[in-house]
């Protein structure tokens, strides 16, 4: 325990200073040493996370030319805009559907890989991780190219099979589908690897005990695997929800929020307002809206995780 008062060398009396003064005592405390060793990290977090966060809160309360303090004016303005509510809805749909399919596909593939013979497993694990390993901007460009309406891989294949080409990125609904698809393709391997690790940590004897208790494969999944994985599922879903909700690169590269703002997310909308249109305070206000939404989700999910952690241990 870092916060209990334990002193170094307290059993060895210091000859030079039989009664160490307060400063020396303070420096010898374990918690002080722990703090000093964490200091570099704390400084980095202060500079790169905490300062920008507070600065963006300050920024969001200024007027467009950053000359006057306008309080919650930017937030009030955003709330009154239909486009903003459209962005809220789109971000939510995007994050929820993408995370759902990522988790589902991750769970299914993790099971498949886990049931492969040990010899082949490494190969498949490696291959299935590829989408997650390629730099996202590059792979998204690849997808963008495949979604091209004229003679791209998808539409060429569709046409040569006798179907019509699909306006992947110019039809609003197909565009939403496409960005979600790319996000799922990119994010599912993360779930795969987390779930695979979770699956491997379930003791084999629990399944044997369940077999003897009369459980079918499906019942074992429902009554043993899922409950044993609940914490990992909750944490991966929370983590992915945050990352997906704040996604920028996929949407920016593929559609830049279009057509007709129908694929805008918080991050791309904030970028549009703050950088493209030059209203930094309004952009900051937009991105700050994500905070309470994700904060509430995090509190609920983590509370469940802690409770189950105490029960199962």
């Amino acid at each position, binding site marked *: 325990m870092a916060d209990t008062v334990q002193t170094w060398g307290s059993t060895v009396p210091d000859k030079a200073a039989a009664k160490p003064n307060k400063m020396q005592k303070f420096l010898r405390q374990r918690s002080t040493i722990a703090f000093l060793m964490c200091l570099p990290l704390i400084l980095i977090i202060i500079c790169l996370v905490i300062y920008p966060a507070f600065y963006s809160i300050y920024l969001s309360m200024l007027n467009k030319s950053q000359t006057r303090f306008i309080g919650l004016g930017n937030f009030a303005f955003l709330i009154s805009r239909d486009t903003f509510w459209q962005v809220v809805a789109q971000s939510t749909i995007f994050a929820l559907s993408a995370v759902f399919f990522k988790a589902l596909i991750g769970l299914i593939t993790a099971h498949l890989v886990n049931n492969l013979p040990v010899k082949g497993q490494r190969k498949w694990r490696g291959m299935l991780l590829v989408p997650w390993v390629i730099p996202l901007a590059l792979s998204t460009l690849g997808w963008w190219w495949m979604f091209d309406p004229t003679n791209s891989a998808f539409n060429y294949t569709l046409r040569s099979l006798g179907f019509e080409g699909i306006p992947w990125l110019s039809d609003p609904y197909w565009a939403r589908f496409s960005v979600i698809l790319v996000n799922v393709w990119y994010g599912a391997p993360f779930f795969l690897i987390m779930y695979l690790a979770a699956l491997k940590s379930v*003791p084999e004897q*629990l399944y*044997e*005990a*369940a*077999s*003897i*208790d009369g459980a079918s494969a499906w019942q074992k999944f429902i009554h043993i695997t899922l409950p*044993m994985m609940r914490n990992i599922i909750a944490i991966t879903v929370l983590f992915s929800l945050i990352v997906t909700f704040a996604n920028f690169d996929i949407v920016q590269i593929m559609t830049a929020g279009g057509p007709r703002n129908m694929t805008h997310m918080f991050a791309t909308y904030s970028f549009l307002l703050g950088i493209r249109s030059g209203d930094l305070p309004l952009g900051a206000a937009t991105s700050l809206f994500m905070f309470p939404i994700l904060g509430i989700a995090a509190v609920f999910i983590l509370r469940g995780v802690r409770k189950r952690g105490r029960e*199962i241990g």
Partner: protein
Amino acid sequence: MADVELRNVVKKYDDVVAVASINLDIPNHEFVVLVGPSGCGKSTTLRMIAGLEEITGGEITIDGSVVNDLPPKDRDIAMVFQNYALYPHMTVAENMSFGLKLRKFPKAEIKARVDNAARILDITELLARRPKQLSGGQRQRVAMGRAIVRNPKVFLFDEPLSNLDAKLRVQMRTEIKRVHQKVKTTTVYVTHDQVEAMTLADRVVVMNAGRIEQIGTPNDLYHHPATRFVAGFIGSPAMNFVPATLESVGDGLRVRLSDTISFNVPESRVARYKPHAGKQVTFGLRPEHITETRGHHNGTGQEFTAVLDVVEPMGMETMVYFRINGTELCGRVEPTASGNAGEQMPLRANLDQMHLIDPATGLVL
């Protein structure tokens, strides 16, 4: 409740033979213990009965029907695992009732059975807890409770006590015996601990290297071992083995351990050993049959003198170690009778309890 039969059961992993054609009949209500050193195939045999391992050859029947291709859930067996394998996310009551729920028993029946099993095992006040909140002994009881509520045809125990500390192990051993006396379900119990085997079993099956060495009641195995392996495995401290020569002396026989020490073979054994006269044999005698000379044993005691190597006082008795022809032997003497290490001590061997073993085949003659 049912009888279990194993007919020429074989288990191979690729080319490695884990279990080599064993035959075993376990009648209804019997408590059978499979015992042997690690890797002897006892756990594999149990897991084959459970259906957790496929069998390579032979036939297993439970209650008269062949179960070779039946999955574990259809064999109507219950198993207690070494590390208990309790479901950590379920309460004790849920752990115990899981099998019944899957089999769609009515709720009232489930509750009645769980309550009854909890009463038998004295865990009623633990029913709402989770495994994490239980001690090792309590987990062990819950694992047994999970088996009892099912009221299965056969109980299978896979080294259930090896994760407990020594004191608790003795206590749970008694508990298991008590439960078996109450529910009388046919039981197959695997352990590497011969004391557990001796104390629990109606019959003990000693296994070695994938084969059955001997099947018998605990007393049978102790007093009439069939092979050198069984003689050495059962009993603690282990039986003394000394290379010896069987000599004919007139009508009688004499077993010579060294130039100076030889014993007359008791008359009752002469006819049995006569064909082996003149051959090399292994002489076996348990430590408790080497005592101080003042011992009031009946039977043929023959005295000899040994220089004590090590003396181990145990309180109620003292172990004395000495050498004959370079082989170390152990004797059990009264604490008051023992000499000190390095001293000479007169000892007495009770030859009515001796065994002679053919060194080539390992069979007891």
